[in-house]
């Protein structure tokens, strides 16, 4: 890890719960992406009854889709596309192991499509098999070099799991070339830039991501949060506006409340900061950091009893949960 990356990481660890960001980045990597996979380009000539499976998939009726595929497999046990669809349905039903086994059956039977490799890769990622994930996404890229999702997924992966922002940047740039209007990819690029020590570039890229979120009316708070954090020392009023906007976009996201609390704390708005940190603690009950922040805030407001109670909670949780 470069010194620049270390510096940024240290800064982030101090100013923001980095693990929350990583979890969020990682979390959505396999959320929206696989939902897109039902429309396989390889299925141009499916058996007539496969249409029903696709219809169910489009409607996200995964349990019914799985039942339908299983029934079809009894009639067509040699059709690899059915195993592909079995894998998709199982993945959506949170059965990553079943999904992998189905996708592998399809692969062994000769199916070799970008969608299959991408879906198999996502299923590997879900069970933390990162080496195999990378291999599969590379295969998907070979078969379909113009697929935004594959580059984006690799970019996010190298950024959040491999801690290799140089490589992550490379993939994210390719993803953005293919789809220039995706705030998530642009935001991820900004995170990489920041981690590599390019603060000004990162700020410009966060801004670009924020503009896209607003233009597309998306509920994506992360660029606002990160920009608020970066602006905190130089322009607290603007930081406050951005942090409030992040909370507005994602009121159930603990990290958004955490940034807002930090901004309010820095501005001396202690009651507001306390309220936000209490929200963080409620939304993320295993996170020790809001309790420490509350300990400090209650001390500032001379409520020593509440401060001690928060310190105790912090110590208990801190001993129990691994820290990033």
């Amino acid at each position, binding site marked *: 890890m470069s010194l620049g990356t270390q510096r940024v990481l240290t800064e982030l660890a101090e100013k923001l719960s980095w693990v929350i960001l990583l979890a969020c980045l990682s979390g959505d990597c396999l959320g929206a992406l696989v939902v897109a996979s039902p429309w396989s380009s390889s299925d141009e000539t499916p058996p007539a009854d496969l249409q029903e499976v696709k219809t169910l998939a489009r409607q996200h009726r995964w349990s019914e889709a799985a039942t339908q595929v299983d029934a079809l497999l009894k009639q067509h046990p040699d059709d690899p596309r059915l195993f592909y669809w079995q894998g998709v349905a199982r993945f959506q039903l949170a059965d990553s192991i079943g999904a992998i086994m189905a996708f592998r059956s399809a692969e062994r039977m000769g199916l070799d499509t970008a969608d299959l490799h991408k879906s198999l890769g996502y299923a590997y990622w879900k069970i933390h098999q*990162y080496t*195999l994930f990378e291999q599969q996404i590379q295969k998907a890229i070979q078969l379909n070099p113009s697929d935004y999702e594959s580059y984006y997924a690799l970019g996010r992966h190298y950024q959040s799991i491999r801690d290799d922002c140089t490589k992550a940047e490379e993939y994210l740039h390719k993803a953005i070339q293919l789809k220039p209007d995706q705030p998530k990819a642009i935001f991820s690029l900004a995170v990489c830039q920041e981690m590599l020590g390019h603060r000004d570039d990162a700020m410009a890229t966060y801004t670009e991501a924020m503009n896209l979120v607003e233009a597309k009316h998306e509920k994506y708070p992360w660029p606002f949060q990160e920009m608020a954090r970066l602006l905190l020392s130089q322009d607290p009023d603007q930081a406050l506006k951005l942090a409030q906007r992040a909370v507005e976009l994602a009121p159930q996201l603990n990290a958004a409340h955490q940034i807002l609390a930090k901004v309010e704390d820095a501005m001396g708005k202690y009651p507001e900061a306390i309220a936000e940190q209490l929200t963080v603690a409620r939304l993320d009950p*295993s*996170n020790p950091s809001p309790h420490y922040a509350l300990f400090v805030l209650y001390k500032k407001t001379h409520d020593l009893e509440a401060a001690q109670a928060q310190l105790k909670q912090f110590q208990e949780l801190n001993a129990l949960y691994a820290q990033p």
Partner: protein
Amino acid sequence: MRNLRFIEIVLGWSIVLATAGLSGTPGAFAQFGPLVNTMNAPQAKTEEELDLYLELAVSTNPRASMEIAERFAAKYPESELLGLVYEYEMQACQRLGDFEGTLRAGRKALELLPDNADTQLTLASVIPDHAQGREDSTKLLREAEEYARRSLRELSTMRIPKEILPDRWKTLRGQLEAQAHEALGKIERARENLEGTISEFALAASQNPVPQGTQFLELGAAYAQARRPEEAKKAFQRAIELGPDSVRGVAQRELAKIAGNRTP
């Protein structure tokens, strides 16, 4: 048979997983649930290696599981998944009542994953059931005690993934500690240390946040052996309340014996 089903959680080696509701097949996928550190997850080097591992993970036939585990160990001796493979083999041997196999596989698992509390507790529970009458009984019981005490130490300092909420962990940890004390009770019983047996079974029964009929049954039996009928009676009554039926039946017979002994 383990009183607490570790199919719900596997502990140790910096891993705690709560697979129920995550994988659809509780407990089978040790490293695939929430992890303390996903970056440290053991990696299969090839798809074929993972295929075989998954075949083992989903196998419900213990004989097939043993065969797959042996095949895996022979084919992938350097695999990062091997410690977990031996753990599966240990569980399969246990289900088949193969004590030597359980012991052998469990020891191999602990060589590779020394902090795996699941393996430690399994061996701690199984050994005293088979140690009596053997030449190496004393040595085996000492080994079992070491596993039980190590698991208790492990549980007291374990870091857990944030997906497991504090209250949930409190319950899980209580259950696991109760299992460790139950194992220690069995070890003391095999050593014919009645006071030690009672003390450990009492801890297991009273501290378990999900009270188990079997643990009260064992406690009742220890009290009965120590000629403490009132305490035995209470423990048997609690075992009858908690069940299951097999426990209930034994507890009722034991209660009847106590009552019979009192009848002039």
